[in-house]
């Protein structure tokens, strides 16, 4: 019935997106796979020990020995980049895992109980929303000292409301559908219905949100290390690499800082594009 309208407005756009969008998305997916593989196999891939600094070879340019040169302390930049991918993967991954699981639990609970429980949880989530993730991470460092453990836990809490809100909204929508009522009438417990029936339906949307969250968590944790509050030397980390190369930047030799900076941006762009495209496609399928 609505064929002419659909033909008029949607078709060319959809075609454009399915062609151009998917190629870009595949590229980004490829980058993410590469990122994960590098992080997993980092010790075998890095040509040199990034924690070993030769004093005489500080700030040399790219060469056969040092593909991307060295930093001020003579550490091999390429090796540090490779090994640094591990903290850039593990930190955000933990944040996203914990915040997603907690967010789903809280969101479902809030939606299912409704009433004043829902209201109170909503207000508490509002309070958490008012704390930027980076601030929470800094506060965690102030309380528990430098390192990654405390900030990762703290940021899991800071990121949780995004997922919780999303899940609560989706669960409210799904709850209104007849099939959920049908299950409950059959005597299945709320928990059973939630886990077996609801989750698969809202899972992809939550996954899209988590993918985007991963990118932002990576940025926040890298910022923390850049501030000198996160990953501590000698553990290689992209944010810390930029921090340690500040003096070299002022001396006009920014390569050892630019390399991890580009890596951060590329990985986050890839996460954002993949996450948003997945989200768009889901939204498109729904309408």
């Amino acid at each position, binding site marked *: 019935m609505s064929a002419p309208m659909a033909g008029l407005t949607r078709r060319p756009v959809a075609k454009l997106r399915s062609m151009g969008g998917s190629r870009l998305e595949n590229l980004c997916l490829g980058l993410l796979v590469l990122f994960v593989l590098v992080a997993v196999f980092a010790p075998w891939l890095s040509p040199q020990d990034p924690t070993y600094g030769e004093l005489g070879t500080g700030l040399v340019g790219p060469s056969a020995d040092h593909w991307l040169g060295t930093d001020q302390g003579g550490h091999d930049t390429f090796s540090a980049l490779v090994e640094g991918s591990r903290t850039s993967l593990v930190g955000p991954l933990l944040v996203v895992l914990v915040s997603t699981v907690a967010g789903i639990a809280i969101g479902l609970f809030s939606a299912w109980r409704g009433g004043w429980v829902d209201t109170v949880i909503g*207000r*508490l989530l*509002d*309070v958490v929303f*008012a*704390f*930027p993730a*980076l*601030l929470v991470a*800094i*506060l965690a*460092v*102030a*309380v*528990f000292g430098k390192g990654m453990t405390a900030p990762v836990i703290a940021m899991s809490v800071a990121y949780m409301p995004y997922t919780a809100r999303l899940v609560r909204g989706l669960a409210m929508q799904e709850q209104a559908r007849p099939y959920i009522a049908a299950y409950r009438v059959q005597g299945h417990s709320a928990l059973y219905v939630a886990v077996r029936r609801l989750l698969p339906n809202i899972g992809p949307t939550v996954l899209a949100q988590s993918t985007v969250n991963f*990118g932002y968590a990576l*940025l926040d944790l*890298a*910022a923390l290390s*850049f*501030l*000198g*509050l996160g990953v501590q030397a000698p553990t290689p980390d992209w*944010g810390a690499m*930029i*921090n340690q190369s*500040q003096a070299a*930047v*002022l*001396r*006009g030799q*920014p390569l050892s*800082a*630019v390399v991890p*900076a580009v890596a*951060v*941006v590329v990985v*986050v*762009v890839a996460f*954002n*594009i993949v996450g948003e495209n997945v989200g768009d496609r889901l939204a498109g399928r729904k309408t």
Partner: protein
Amino acid sequence: MSRTTTRALGVVSRLAGMAATLLVTSFLVFSSLYLAPGDPASFLVRGRSASPDELAQIRHRYGFDEPFFVRYWDWLGGVLHGDFGRSYVFHQDVSSVIWSRLPATLLLIAAAALLIAVVGVAAGIVGALRRGTRTDSMLMLLVTVGAAAPAFVAALLLRSLFGVKLGWFPTIGNGTGVLDRLHHVVLPAIALSVTFMAMVTRVTRSSMLEELGREHVEVAVSRGTPRWTVIRRHVLRNALGPIVTVSALLISGMLVSTSIVETAFGMSGVGSLLVTSVNQMDFQVVQAIVLLVVAAFVVVNFLVDLVHPLIDPRVAAAGSAR
């Protein structure tokens, strides 16, 4: 009359909500630092070996021996009077430590906010009006990269290109005197605003596109209203709600990002103070700044809620209907 009453009631209930949020926030902030392992008294004597008597004296003087809720209550009472306690490191009132660094940070935020509001919104408008063209694609590419370019990366690139290589801008410090300060704040402001500018551009563009497709826009065109009048009075005007909301929230959330930019550019401000205070375990200062950052966000949120009905009268209608 009744509409004014309901509106006033709405404001009062929002105020109460804001107060409650701030109260919970203050409790969270205070208790988190109370939980910090280690004895603040032994921190205060700075590694000097102090006798237990001496430590007890210090505890008593600073009130460390009081129960938790008493201390929280005292602290909260002080905060409400603008007294955030004394800095262990600076041996000054926390408020004066922060106060002296606030102007630099506010200048940085103001400059970044200006960039966001002008460049971000303008780019979004151009993108929406040139939809599907090469200009639009370029803008969207910039937005995608910009949204993923954190302040420390932007700071790094700007510093090494415009500071070190070209020498157009200073690379470190706050500067002295009005012009010098402005000169010093250019690169930090850009670095601070890149991500937020990208977000505002995206919101402006999509909000404008949504409004461009509305029938009332076609009606205005059908009446011979000049293109720019239509864009100004019907498209941009109607798209303003989300743009203002997002911009305000981003700008209020920018306070924490100043810590990155001020550290990167070696500036003295509230943001860099937060980082040094964490490093020096100056808990009173950390507490105060964290509270300020959250309060700024909550207050701006409240103001946006207040302003929104003025931008979109339908919101006011929905509000009074509730």
